[in-house]
């Protein structure tokens, strides 16, 4: 049995769903962030798979590297915010974040 494009797309879809579930259901701000990163990685898996099976260049793999760098920057900003919230409140509960938003 050969592993084709569909297998990778299914993996991507599963990763994406796992990310969505984490964003929607987890209360911990770091867990929500990990969910976002999972969604981005699902997009990366798609890009690499499309590149390998359909277009045949290396463009998709190069883009994935760019996306990884962007995701790192995003995570850095998110963690900086979370640390600042933690300094102020000693907890990083998303529910409390929302309740204070008014």
């Amino acid at each position, binding site marked *: 049995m050969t592993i084709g494009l569909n297998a990778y797309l299914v993996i991507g879809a599963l990763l994406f769903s796992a990310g969505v579930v984490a964003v929607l259901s987890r209360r911990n701000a770091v867990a929500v962030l990990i969910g*976002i990163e999972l*969604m*981005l990685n699902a997009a990366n898996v798609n*890009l690499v798979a499309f590149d390998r099976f359909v277009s045949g260049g290396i463009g998709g793999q190069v883009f994935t590297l760019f996306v990884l760098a962007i995701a790192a920057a995003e995570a850095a900003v*998110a963690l900086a915010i979370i640390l*600042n919230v933690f300094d102020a409140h000693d907890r990083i509960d998303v529910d409390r974040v*929302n309740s204070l938003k008014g």
Partner: protein
Amino acid sequence: MDASLPALVVVVPMLAAILTALAGRWWRRHAWPVALLATAFAAAGSLRILWRAVHEGVVLYRMGGWPVPTGIPYRIDLLNGIVLAMVACVSFLSVLWMRESVKREIRQAGQASYYAVVLLFTTGFLGITITGDVFNLYVFLEIASITSYVLVAMGRRREGLFAGYQYLILGSIGATFVLIGIGHLYMATGSLAMTDIAARLSGALVDHPSVVHTSFAFITVGLAIKMALFPLHSWQPGAYTYAPSSASLLMAATATKVAAYAFYRFAFTVFGTHYVTARLPQVMDGIMVMAAAAMVVGPLFAVRQDNLKRMLAYSSVGQIGYVVLGAALVNASAMTGSIAHFWNHAASKGALFAVVGIVVLRSGSPHIDNLRGLGRRAPWTAAAMTVAALSLVGVPLTGGFVTKYYLALGTLETGRGVLLAFILLSSLLTAVYMWRCLQRVWFADPDLEPAVTREAPWTMRVATLTFGAACLVFGVFAWIPVDIASAAARALLGEN
């Protein structure tokens, strides 16, 4: 110099950002002049590019001289010429405006980095606007988004952190959707240059129709989050309310409209008018419903707010409806109104947020009661606010009227006259909340001591009055924006 201007307009603010971040550690006072010079260059350059686009039709710049499908092209036609000029001029005026406000609201050690983030923010939005490559657009979208999260979180009050975090979560989801859409588009066509994708799309629609549809769906939803289109607007009021005043000004006048521009670009240049009208008309109908709902719901929430920043944020939720409605109607007149609204809304919302920033600087809080007596103590500021409020409502001889006139024309031409009711209701509600402000500005009880006791510093006053004057110029000399906008709309729809 003239030939490489499209690249310089983006590169100069980016280099200036690095310069302010590095040099600002030691020469903190030089951060503002550097930011001002860089944005002034971007503003002058973008006006020059718009001038060339008006006369030459399309300005094309190839990064590194690579041919189009291989390298990244910067491609400026009338549509992004308009948006580019808007972003660059708003950034310049905002930076001019923000010196005193930043001194007050950002702690001293962070001021130089604040200007660096502002410059990167400008770079990001200029890049989204100018590029002709979809992946490049995504990268600039992320630069712009990440810097806006930082700007929001730099607010002094701790609510800014929470608002920044909420914005980060929703914004990242939106960007991820756009990325997945671009990935599918790449799969279906094997290309990333916008014009190249457009040329290959008809073939792709035969081979992989569902991939193209999936791509359009993901990109549309992602950009709808980014432009805070009702009902995906929940990040926006918090972000605009708790960000520092200067960041609210900058973001409210540019951010969501640039996402709306990206939607125009994808829908009409990349996917093409034929695709959105003949293959998937339901999507545009759905977006029309969302835009119409936004036009009414935004002002409806705004009426009840006592915090001026939050009121204006909900007002922006409504105003983005006007920008999107023209795209959803796929009609030259309506689109002329919407494209002209890029400028009109930037001018009116810029002026209003500038005035609110002055109120915050002088009185310490954006509560609506702090507007009382503004007309007596700060007549110039109050005048700018009045003109901007009239433009937001859509009174004749202001820019807002031009938008609404052409949008109304478009609804009648497409036989969707029921949308006229939404436009009227939206204007009426806008008049209600703007009247709440103007009544305090001009007709407050003279016995009450005004909260703002003196005029703003001259930098703020010049910028605020320029925003206010722009509302009048776009209304009185309406042919300037309308001629360019209608040529842009006809070019997008392929009519000539």
